[in-house]
C-alpha cells in the first residue's frame, strides 16, 4: 500500500532519494537532508499522500558512519491508512537538517528532544532549546561518545555521609 508513497516521492524528488526498502510491510525512504522539509510538505499537502498524522521524530547515532547522525521521521495517513518512514543522515561537523515543525506543529518538541539528546540542529525551528535537560548541561547524553559514568547535577553535591553512620539501638 505504501509503495504508492515511495513511487510518489521518487517521482517528485528524483535527485533527493538515495534508496528505499521495506521491512515487514513498512516502507522506508532514505533521502538527502537538503530538501527534507519540501518532501515532508509534499507528503502533508498532496491529496494522494495526505499524511495528516505525525507519529515520531528521533535521531540515531552511528559512530562508525561518516554521516553520523540519522534523523528518522514516521508519518501516518489516517485517511488512506498508509505509513512511511523517512531517514536522512548528517555528518558530525555540521549536524543540521531542515525543521519540519512549520508543517507539523507536533514536531516542535520532538526536534527539541533530538537536539537535546544528540545535538542535531533543526534549521528553521522557532525555539530550539533543550527540553528535558537543563540549560547548563554539557554535552549530549545519547551520543555514543558521551561517557557512560559522567554525572552532572545543577546544584553542588554535599559531602558524602560517613561510611559508618551512627548505629540504631536494638529494639527490645
Amino acid at each position, binding site marked *: 500500500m505504501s509503495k504508492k508513497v515511495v513511487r510518489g516521492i521518487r517521482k517528485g524528488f528524483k535527485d533527493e532519494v538515495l534508496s528505499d526498502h521495506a521491512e515487514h510491510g513498512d516502507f522506508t525512504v532514505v533521502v538527502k537532508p537538503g530538501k527534507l522539509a519540501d518532501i515532508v510538505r509534499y507528503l502533508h499537502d498532496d491529496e494522494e499522500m495526505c499524511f495528516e498524522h505525525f507519529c515520531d521524530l528521533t535521531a540515531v547515532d552511528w559512530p562508525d558512519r561518516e554521516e553520523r547522525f540519522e534523523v528518522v521521521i514516521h508519518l501516518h495517513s489516517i485517511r488512506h491508512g498508509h505509513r512511511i518512514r523517512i531517514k536522512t543522515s548528517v555528518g558530525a561537523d555540521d549536524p543540521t537538517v531542515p525543521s519540519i515543525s512549520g508543517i507539523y506543529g507536533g514536531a516542535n518538541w520532538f526536534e527539541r528532544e533530538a537536539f537535546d539528546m544528540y545535538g542535531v540542529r533543526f534549521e528553521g525551528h522557532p525555539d530550539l532549546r533543550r527540553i528535558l535537560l*537543563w540549560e547548563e548541561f554539557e554535552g549530549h*547524553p545519547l551520543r555514543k561518545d558521551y561517557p557512560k559514568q*559522567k554525572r552532572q547535577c545543577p*546544584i553542588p*553535591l*554535599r559531602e558524602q555521609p560517613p561510611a559508618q553512620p551512627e548505629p540504631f*539501638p536494638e529494639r527490645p
Partner: protein
Amino acid sequence: MAVNSTQPAQGSWVVTQVEDAIAWARKFSLFQYPFVTACCAMEFMSTMGPMYDMARFGAEAPRWSPRQADLIWVVGTVTNRQAPILRRIYNQLAEPKWVMAFGTCASTGGFYDNYAVLQGIDKIIPVDVYIPGCPPRPEQVLDALMMLQDRIQREKSSRMRALKERP
C-alpha cells in the same frame, strides 16, 4: 521513659525528664510531607491505607506544605533536574525535621545508573533512614518508621538539629 502504660488514677502523677517527654510527643505526632515522584507511591499508599494503618504510629496526617511538616518522605526516583526542587523543599521544612529515603532509587539511584538520575538523595540532603526495596513492602516501611521513632526518642531536643548539617 517512665510513663506507665496502665491508666493512672485521677490525681496521680508520673516522673520523667522534659527532653524525654518532648521526644516522646514528637515521635508520635509526625506530620509528613510526601515528596512522591515514582512508582514507590503505590506501596506508600498501601502503608497509609487501613490494612497497615500508619495512623497507629501517629503519622497519618500528610501536610501538603513543607512548612507544616516534620518528616519528608522521598518516594521514588529523583532526577538531577529534580534535585534543586528537592533541596529547596528540604530547606523549607521547619526544624526539627527528618528525611526518609523510600525505595532503592531514592536511596542510591537504583538501576537508573545513568546521566539523568541523582545517585541517591543523600548526595544533596542528609537522610535519617534508608528503606531498600523496589518497591519496599509496607512492613519494611513501618519498620523504618519505628527506627525513626527510636532515633527521635534518643535525640536531645535542646540540642536537636541546630548543630547538624544544613545544605
